[in-house]
C-alpha cells in the first residue's frame, strides 16, 4: 500500500519539523503555506533556543529547565508534555548543530550559551541575534532536500480555508485557495497538521508578521475544534514602537548585560548620557534583585507599565524606557547581537552602540491556541496542531527562548503520530465530505466578492486592533473586556456590509484579507471572553481587581467551543496536569 498522504499547513519551524519527520518515516507530505516557507514568521525569532546542555559547569539539568518553564508559566501548563519537551531539548540542539546552524561558539569550538529571562542558568544556544532565521533555514534546507527527492510537495502561495470533516467528525483533508488564481480546491489527506503560528494581527500592531492572523486556527475553531487559554497573550517588554508594527528588541540584549532604566526625576529632559548613574532608576534591578533585568516577560512588562503610568517616569513623559547596551564593548555587541542592533539603527536611525535604545512593551506571543491532547491532536480526530498555534507548552507565560524548542518539539512529535493515525484510519466513505466543504467555501467566496456595503476591511481591522490592545493586553478590567466584546460583535455586524474595492479574480489581496478578517473577529472573542471569565491574575493575565492567583478556582485550562450564537463561545474549565511539580507561589525578587 502506498504511504498515506499527510497535509501540513504552515512552513515555520513547527510545520517544517513535522514535514521532516514524516518524510523520514516514509510518508508523503503536501505542505501548504501562504508565503514561501523560507519567509515564515519563525525568521523573526532572535535571541536563541533553550536546552539544558550544561556546558558552562553550572549544574544545569533538564529537570531545572522543566521547573523554570512550569514556574515561569505560573503552573498553568500541563506538566507531562512540558517535561518531555525539556528532556528532548538537548538532542534537538545537537540535531540543529549537525544540520549546520551557525551557532555562536566557545574558543574550544563548542556551542556557546547565554542567559535568558526566568532562569539563573546559561541555557540558551544562539546564532548571533537571528537564531530563528538560522533555525528556519536549516529546516527549510532539509525540506528542500526531501522536495528534491519527491517526498514533499509544496503549495506555496496557497491559503488554508478549512478542514474537510466527514460525517463521523474525522478530518479527511483541507480546502485551500490559490492566492494568485483564486482557485478553490479540496485536498484529501490521511491526517492534517496545522502549524500556523500566532495571532498577533488581531491586536493590530504587534511584533508578529503580516501572516500571523490566526485565521486557520479560527477556521477550525468554527468547525468544532476547541481553542484553549485564549486569554494568555504575551506582551514582550522590549519592542521598538513603530508606525506599522512593533519591532522586537530581543531579550538577549538583556541576556548579554543590557540594563533597563529611566531618569529618577520625572520630566528629566537631559540626553541619556548626561544623566549620572545616581540619577538613573534601574527599576528591574532594584525591584527584583535576584533576577534583575532577566525577570520573565510578564513581570518586566508590568514593571515598565508601572514606572511609566503609575510613577510617571517615562522618557520625556512618553511611554518609553531606556534599554542600555552602551557599557558593552562594540566587538562583543556585534558578535552576539549584531542583527538586532542593525534593526534598531535602520528603523530608528540611532546607533544603539552609543545611545541607549528607547523601547516599550508590545504584543508578542500567543500562549493559548488550539486545544490538543498529549499526542498533539485536536478534538477533531485526524486534525493535529503544533507550534504557536496550539496551547500546551507555555502555560500562562512563555519563557524567552522556549518558543523555538516548543515549535520543533511539537512538530517532531506531531509528524510521526499523524502518520501512524493515517495508517490505521479506516478509508473515508465516498469523498470524505470534500465536495460539501468545497461548496460551502465557494459560497462564502461568491457572497464576499459581490457584497454591497460601505465598510473597508482594513479599517475594521484597525478598529479591532485598537480595541484589543486597549482592553486585552497588559492590564485587564471586566468592564473594559465587556466593552471590547461588544465592539467585536458590532464589527462582526459591520463585516456583513464589507465592500471590496477590488473584485478581480487574480492575486486579489484584499479578498484574501477579508476572509482572514472574519476569522480574526471570531477568534478575538475567545481572547476577550476567556479573560473576562478568569477572575484572577496569573502569568501574563493581570486584573488589578483580582491581583492574586486563585488556584482553587482557576488552576484550570480555559476551553472555548464555537456556538455561532451572538452570546459568543461556550467556555469550560479543564483540570491541569500537575503530577510532577506542586504549585507554589511565583516570585522573582528572591531565588525560587
Amino acid at each position, binding site marked *: 500500500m502506498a504511504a498515506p498522504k499527510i497535509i501540513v499547513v504552515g512552513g515555520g519551524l513547527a510545520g517544517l519539523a513535522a514535514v*521532516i*519527520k514524516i518524510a*523520514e518515516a516514509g510518508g508523503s507530505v503536501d505542505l501548504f503555506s501562504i*508565503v514561501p516557507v*523560507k*519567509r*515564515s*514568521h519563525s*525568521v*523573526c525569532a532572535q535571541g536563541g533556543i533553550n536546552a539544558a546542555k550544561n556546558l558552562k559547569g553550572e549544574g544545569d539539568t533538564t529537570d531545572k529547565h522543566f521547573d523554570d518553564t512550569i514556574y515561569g508559566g505560573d503552573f498553568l501548563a500541563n506538566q507531562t508534555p512540558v517535561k518531555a519537551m525539556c528532556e528532548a531539548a538537548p538532542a534537538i540542539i*545537537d*540535531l540543529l*548543530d*549537525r*544540520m*549546520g546552524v*551557525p*551557532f*555562536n*561558539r566557545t*574558543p*574550544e*569550538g*563548542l*556551542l556557546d550559551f547565554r542567559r535568558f529571562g526566568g532562569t539563573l542558568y546559561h541555557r540558551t544556544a544562539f*546564532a*548571533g541575534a*537571528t537564531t530563528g*532565521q538560522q533555525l528556519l533555514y*536549516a529546516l527549510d*534546507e*532539509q525540506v*528542500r*532536500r526531501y*522536495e*528534491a527527492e519527491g517526498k514533499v510537495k509544496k503549495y506555496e502561495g496557497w491559503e488554508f480555508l478549512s478542514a474537510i470533516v466527514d460525517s463521523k467528525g474525522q478530518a479527511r483533508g483541507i480546502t485551500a485557495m490559490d492566492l494568485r488564481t483564486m482557485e478553490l480546491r479540496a485536498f484529501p489527506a490521511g491526517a492534517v497538521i496545522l502549524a500556523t503560528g500566532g495571532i498577533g494581527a488581531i491586536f493590530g500592531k504587534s511584533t508578529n*508578521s*503580516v501572516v500571523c492572523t490566526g485565521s486557520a486556527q479560527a477556521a477550525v475553531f468554527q468547525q468544532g475544534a476547541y481553542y484553549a487559554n485564549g486569554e494568555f497573550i504575551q506582551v514582550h517588554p522590549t519592542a521598538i514602537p513603530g*508606525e*506599522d*508594527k512593533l*519591532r*522586537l528588541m530581543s531579550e538577549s540584549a538583556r541576556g548579554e548585560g543590557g540594563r533597563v532604566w529611566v531618569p529618577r526625576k520625572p520630566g528629566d529632559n537631559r540626553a541619556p548620557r548626561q544623566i549620572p548613574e545616581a540619577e538613573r532608576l534601574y527599576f528591574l534591578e532594584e525591584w527584583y534583585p535576584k533576577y534583575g533585568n532577566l525577570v520573565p516577560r510578564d513581570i518586566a512588562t508590568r514593571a515598565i507599565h508601572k514606572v511609566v503610568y503609575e510613577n510617571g517616569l517615562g522618557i520625556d513623559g512618553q511611554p518609553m524606557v531606556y534599554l542600555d547596551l552602551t557599557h558593552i564593548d562594540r566587538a562583543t555587541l556585534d558578535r552576539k547581537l549584531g*542583527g538586532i542592533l542593525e*534593526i534598531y539603527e*535602520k*528603523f*530608528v*536611525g540611532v546607533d544603539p552602540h552609543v545611545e541607549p535604545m528607547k523601547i516599550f512593551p508590545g504584543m508578542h506571543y500567543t500562549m493559548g491556541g488550539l486545544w490538543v491532547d498529549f499526542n498533539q491532536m485536536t478534538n477533531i480526530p485526524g486534525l493535529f496542531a503544533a507550534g504557536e498555534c496550539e496551547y500546551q507548552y507555555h502555560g500562562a507565560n512563555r519563557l524567552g527562548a522556549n518558543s523555538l524548542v516548543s515549535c520543533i518539539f511539537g512538530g*517532531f512529535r506531531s509528524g510521526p503520530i499523524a502518520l501512524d493515525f493515517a495508517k490505521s484510519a479506516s478509508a473515508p466513505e465516498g469523498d470524505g465530505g470534500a465536495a460539501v466543504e468545497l461548496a460551502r467555501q465557494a459560497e462564502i467566496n461568491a457572497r464576499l466578492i459581490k457584497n454591497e456595503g460601505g465598510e*473597508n476591511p*482594513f*479599517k475594521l481591522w*484597525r478598529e479591532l486592533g485598537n480595541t484589543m490592545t486597549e482592553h486585552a493586553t497588559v492590564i485587564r478590567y471586566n468592564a473594559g473586556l465587556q466593552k471590547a466584546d461588544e465592539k467585536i460583535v458590532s464589527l462582526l455586524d459591520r463585516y456583513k456590509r464589507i465592500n471590496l*474595492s*477590488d473584485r478581480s479574480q*487574480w*492575486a486579489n*489581496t*484584499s479578498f484574501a484579507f477579508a476572509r482572514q478578517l472574519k476569522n480574526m473577529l471570531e477568534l478575538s472573542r475567545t481572547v476577550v471572553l476567556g479573560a473576562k471569565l478568569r477572575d484572577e491574575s496569573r502569568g501574563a493575565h493581570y486584573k488589578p481587581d483580582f491581583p492574586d492567583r486563585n488556584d482553587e478556582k482557576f488552576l484550570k485550562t480555559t476551553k472555548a467551543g464555537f456556538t455561532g450564537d451572538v452570546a459568543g463561545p461556550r467556555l469550560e474549565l479543564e483540570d491541569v496536569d500537575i503530577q510532577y511539580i506542586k504549585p507554589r507561589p511565583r516570585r522573582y525578587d528572591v531565588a525560587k
Partner: protein
Amino acid sequence: MATKTVQLEIKRQASPDAPAAWEKFEVEWRPGLNVTSALMDIALNPVTADGHATTPITYDSNCLEEICGSCAMRINGKARMACSTLIENIEQPVRIEPLSKFPLVRDLQVDRSVLFENLKAVRAWVPVDGTYDLGPGPRVFPQQQEVSYPLSNCISCTCCMEVCPQFNEETGFVGAATIAQVKLFNNHPTGKVFKEERLRALAGDGGIQECGYAQNCVEVCPKQLPLTNAISDVSRDVLIQKAKDFLRG
C-alpha cells in the same frame, strides 16, 4: 493646518498580460514612515491623488523588519526592501515599481521561485544521516563560524539578481545568492561531502563563469553579504574542479 504629505507614483499592472500604467497617490507623512506603511495607507483608502477610486496595491510583505526577504521592489530606481526604506531618507515623489527581472504577477508582486530552484540544483543543505539522536555536531571554531554566519544571513530577497547585468534569460546565470550558499555549504564539515557536485553544477552554462564582476550585487545586498568574496572563492574552486575532472578524464 495642512498636514505634510508624501507623493507616491506606483506602477500598476492587473495581471501578467494586462497593460502597465502609473498611478499617483498622496498619503499623510509621519515620522518613521516606511514604504510598506504607505502601501497600507493606500489599502485603507484606495483613491488616487486625483480622486479616482482604485484597488489596493498587490505586493509581497511579511515580517516588516527586513529579515523575511519578501518586500523587495524598485524604489526610485533602486532594488531594495520596502519595509526598511524610510520615506524621510529618500526623494519624492517616491517611484515604486516591481523588480524587473522576474515574472510579474500583479502590481509590485513578482515570482522569485527561480532562486529556490537554484538552491535545489546546488544541493544547498547539509546531508544529515537522520533526525534521531546522534550526539553533537562537528566542532566548529569561532573563526569559522564568523565566516559562515554572514553567508547564512541571506534572506533570499533577490536584490543581487535584480541588479546583476548578467542575470537574464540569455545567460541563465544563477546569480550571487546561490553562489554564496555554495560557499557556505562547501565550507561546512559535513556539507562539503557534496562539494564536487555543487562545483560541477556551477561549471556549465549559467554557472559562475557568467559573472562579469560588475559588483552591483555586493553594493545592493541589504544584509551586507560578502558576495564578491564568495564569487571569487567559488570561482577558484570551480576552476580547480574543472581541472581535476579534465585530468581524471
